[in-house]
């Protein structure tokens, strides 16, 4: 087991080197770079140096005067020591900016993750228990609608109904206008209120796949021999489903959920941007748009690590939860 995990981690490290290399190369290709805009801005100031002089100076200051490959290794050499430099757009250390925004994303993802579990698993099981019944059809259709809903469209509808027509929530942002005057508890409630629509959006858009996954697995379990045995020996249907079937269904579900745990930190770029929640997704969106290489590199590396970690956790959990599986 240890050997397996160690091997996976080593492979992951190699993968990360290539991933960051590709991303760094693409980022450097971005012609509307941050430096160019900045130089143009500075050159228009009265009594300033020319655009070209600024370009040379800024390129040197931001470490862009070396080639792509050299630049990558310079970045990587610092990155392995945990130095990600300063964000150009935010004018503060990348890690500081990251730690100030990540918890918004985490809160958002965690809330929708919990809601998802609470909705999807009971619904999936209910659908599987009565396959091809009305319940099954309704749940299947709802799940598929959730999967098919474009998040931006659903978010817009929510905004239109709840923010504009009913006026219950603000259109944008994480805090209200009077946030500073509220008591500490009031501040938290204010933020929670601003999270409601994004959480609903994220939940509805992603609940479908977990619902269907639960249904499929439950069906598979219900068709297995030991369930037939349980029924044959005269157990009540509730006991069959809730004890024998449900526990076995949990194996793949826990594996899947374990794999998505790291994803709670990765932020929801589109949803956060739509509601202007200052989480990691919205922050990175702005950075990508501005060509802020240090922050984007960090974000991409972070996301890649989360993906790899998710896969690793899923594989390990698979073996841990189900003793029939042997890792090799």
């Amino acid at each position, binding site marked *: 087991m240890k050997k397996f995990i160690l091997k996976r981690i080593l*492979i992951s490290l*190699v*993968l*990360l080197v*290539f*991933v960051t290399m*590709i*991303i760094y190369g*693409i*980022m450097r*290709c*971005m*012609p*509307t770079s941050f430096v160019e805009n900045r130089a143009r801005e500075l050159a228009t100031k009265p009594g300033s140096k020319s655009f070209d002089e600024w370009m040379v100076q800024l390129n040197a200051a931001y470490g862009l005067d070396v080639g792509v490959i050299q630049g990558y290794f310079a970045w990587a050499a610092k990155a392995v020591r945990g130095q990600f430099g300063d964000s150009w757009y935010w004018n503060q250390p990348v890690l500081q900016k990251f730690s100030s925004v990540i918890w918004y994303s985490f809160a958002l993802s965690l809330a929708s993750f919990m809601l998802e579990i609470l909705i999807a698993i009971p619904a999936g099981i209910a659908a599987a228990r009565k*396959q091809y019944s009305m319940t099954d*059809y309704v749940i*299947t*259709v709802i799940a*598929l*609608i959730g*999967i*098919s*809903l*474009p*998040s*931006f*469209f659903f978010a*817009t*509808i929510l*905004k*239109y109904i709840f923010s*504009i027509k009913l006026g219950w929530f603000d*259109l944008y942002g994480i805090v209200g206008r009077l946030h500073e005057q509220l008591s500490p508890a009031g501040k938290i409630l204010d933020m929670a209120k601003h999270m409601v629509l994004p959480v609903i959006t994220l939940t509805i858009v992603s609940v479908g796949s977990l619902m269907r996954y639960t249904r*499929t697995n439950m*069906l*598979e379990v219900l*068709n297995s021999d030991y369930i037939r045995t349980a029924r044959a020996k005269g157990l009540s249907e509730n006991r069959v489903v809730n004890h024998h079937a449900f526990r076995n269904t949990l194996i793949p579900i826990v594996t899947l959920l374990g794999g998505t745990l790291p994803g709670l930190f*990765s932020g929801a*770029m*589109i949803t956060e*941007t739509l509601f202007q929640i200052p989480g990691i997704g919205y922050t*990175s*969106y702005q950075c*990508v*748009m501005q*060509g802020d290489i240090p922050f*984007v590199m960090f*974000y*991409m590396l972070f*996301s*890649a690590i989360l*993906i*790899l970690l998710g896969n690793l956790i899923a594989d390990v959990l698979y073996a841990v939860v189900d003793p029939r599986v042997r890792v090799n």
Partner: protein
Amino acid sequence: MEEKKEQKMKLDDAQRVRVLSPGMLVAKRFFRNRLAIVGLVIIVCMFLFAFLGGALIPYSQSQVFYTTDEMKKDYAGATYITDYQTFPAENVKLPKDSNSKTILAVTTGKLIFTSKEDRTFGLSPIGEGVYIMYELIPEEKDLSDTDGYLQAAEDETNVFEADGQIWLYEADGTDVTFYEATEAAVVCQRSFTPYEADTVFPYAFYCNVLKAMGDGETKVTVDGDTYTIVQDDESSAMIYDASGKEYAYVSDMNINSVVEGVFLTPAFKEVVREAIDAKVETFQYQDENGGNDKYILERKNNQYTIRRYQETKVIDTYASPSKEHPVGTDANGMDLLARLMYGGRISLLIGFVVVLIELLIGVIVGGVAGFFGGWVDNLLMRFVDIIYCIPAIPLYMILGSIMDYYQVSATLRIYLLCVVISIIGWVGIARIVRGQILSLREQEFMVAAEATGISVKRRIFKHLIPNVIPQLIVFATMGLGDIILTEASLSFLGLGIKYPAASWGSIINAVNDSYVMTNYVFVWIPAGLLILLTVLAFNFIGDGLRDAFDPKMKR
């Protein structure tokens, strides 16, 4: 699972007549699934809507529509004339300073003045603010005993006629100075508007009309023509010629058009003058074409502005749904229904092209990796892992802004977008194909195939790939929906399809303006519903296909 269906059967097997072919079985199971049928119908409708509808609709996707809008526009300006206007007589050239001297003379009451060029002029009042200017030559003679002078003194005018000559006198106490006078000009605070733009009034006309108005007469004769004066008040009058046609309008206001090429008729000016006197804010005027326009009169100090509602051609933005535009128009005045149809073509096209590219790359890479195994498999799969690790949306965004910089044309952008999405997306297919082939490779029928000496190529493409096809079809159908969603999200963020090409996502992009989101629901709801329906339909079909291909899950 599928291999069961592949089992060979004798030609005269009794079961053969009853058993359907595997393909037919799948089709039968598929068509028994109601949701799948619904999905199929929706997709067919979408295709008809996008491709047939786009061909039938009379508008193109980038046709801009115009509408006429009533806009208040400045039409004319009116002011009271406070300066003295000088209308010189024929063949008289007045000195340059005559105007300023005249004003001085009128305000001081000293009616005789000498210009810089040493010419003497005198003014003789003939009405309220109306003077006749005479050029004077001092006369030594004392004419104080002539009848003309006595009459003039009685009438309190300073001009008289004697010996066939006009004389002007200036009384200073008992001292009277006489001048021999020649009419030089008429000075007044009136404007004359001819009825026809090119009419030029002779001096006598100005002179006689003003005299007649001062005397309150209704007939005036100029050069043998008789004109009728209808006075509105002291200072304005309409003048008709002998045939009773309007000839000119005299007024104490300057009324000028501010619109180029518009000649204001006397009749219009008369209406304006009356409106100003009546202190109304709006008035109507019927022009010669019979158009009855409404005008607005605005006063600012002594300046009056006449504005009118004018029809102006403007781009028909955000027009509400109507007969002509069943879904309305967008921010650029383009018909939304046409854009939805053309956008549907692009969205569907991108979906299919991307899935085809993904299948091509995925099947080759996955097939090779799975079949050969060993280091080939390891290498290829690590490559797949690398691409799998790259967060897709930020990458699309970076590539989108690179395309922005190079100003890639809207059409080329569509193809590039296909390539970009498929380069990221093929890894899923490669993993499925590899996984399937790895397990199939170990099965007996493959051992048999190898034992019979079939070539590698044939083994892969004739025996392995067909067994993977069911999963591929399911994955591709569901993938179509995902790709349409991805493209819509990118276009929504403004990084996918760009104006003038349309896509469903870029139509919804309009909601980034909260005003549009609030007030023009018809702009974004239909596009969103179309995306939802299409993706949903692909998912229904994919779901139905999976159930149909995998009978083990049934019942």
